[in-house]
């Protein structure tokens, strides 16, 4: 992992949404990773999807109308 790269996470209201989002991003070929929600961020659902901040618009576009994103956070 390159430490210079900047990451963001997308938070969802449920694990089901995380699973759905993971499938969509995988299909779309957008690099991503399912990680536990960082302790500094509180969320009801314990896992979230991390991606490169520069891909934020692609993530947004890929998930739009398919999975509701609760919130984006920069890491």
């Amino acid at each position: 992992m390159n430490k210079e790269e900047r990451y963001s996470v997308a938070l969802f209201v449920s694990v089901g949404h995380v699973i759905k989002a993971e499938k969509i991003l995988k299909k779309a070929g957008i690099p991503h990773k399912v990680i536990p929600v960082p302790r500094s961020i509180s969320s009801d659902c314990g896992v979230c999807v991390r991606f490169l901040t520069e891909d934020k618009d692609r993530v947004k576009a890929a998930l739009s109308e398919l999975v509701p994103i609760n919130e984006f956070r920069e890491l």
Partner: protein
Amino acid sequence: MADIIDARGLSCPEPVVLTKKALHRKDEIVVLVDNETALENVERLAVSMGCTINVNEEADSTYRIEIKRSTRLSSAEPPKSEICGNSSGPMVILFTSNIMGHGDDELGAILMKAYIHTLRELDNKPDIMVFYNKGVMLTTSDSGVADDLKELEGMGIKILICGTCVNYFNIQNKISIGTISNMYTIATTLLTAGRIVKP
């Protein structure tokens, strides 16, 4: 004169089994193998039994492994660590599946990814991580945790991957981390562990 064990053409774990048997009879043996996996497995066994080794690659892609044991092992009395629980032994995490817990596989897969990612951040790290059966799928480059495992390996944690399982799932070309291991090493690791954690 050293005994010559010809293990060419044999598949894992036979070369290791033959080597171990031979080392119980003799202190000095020569093992012939014809592939790198067998070479590595035999080397590892020899080192773990306190032997010195000398490897020569011969013309027809045969490896000639000369093994010499300095301390005589009594076959009637195996070392205590092989038969007894040893609370000061290494901490081992055992991945028997690519999912965490039972109930829902999709949820379990997500939990397992989160678990491995979290291991990097914990103060108490395992010494060895063992992957077998479907657990080996976690070690492939597209598992979603390959970078975490690489980081853990970089911290000095030993990653042992069941070679039979890798072969069964036909994922040899997708594994870039850890050590492809065999049942001897895995069984010994489990027997000599101080603590075994199975998520």
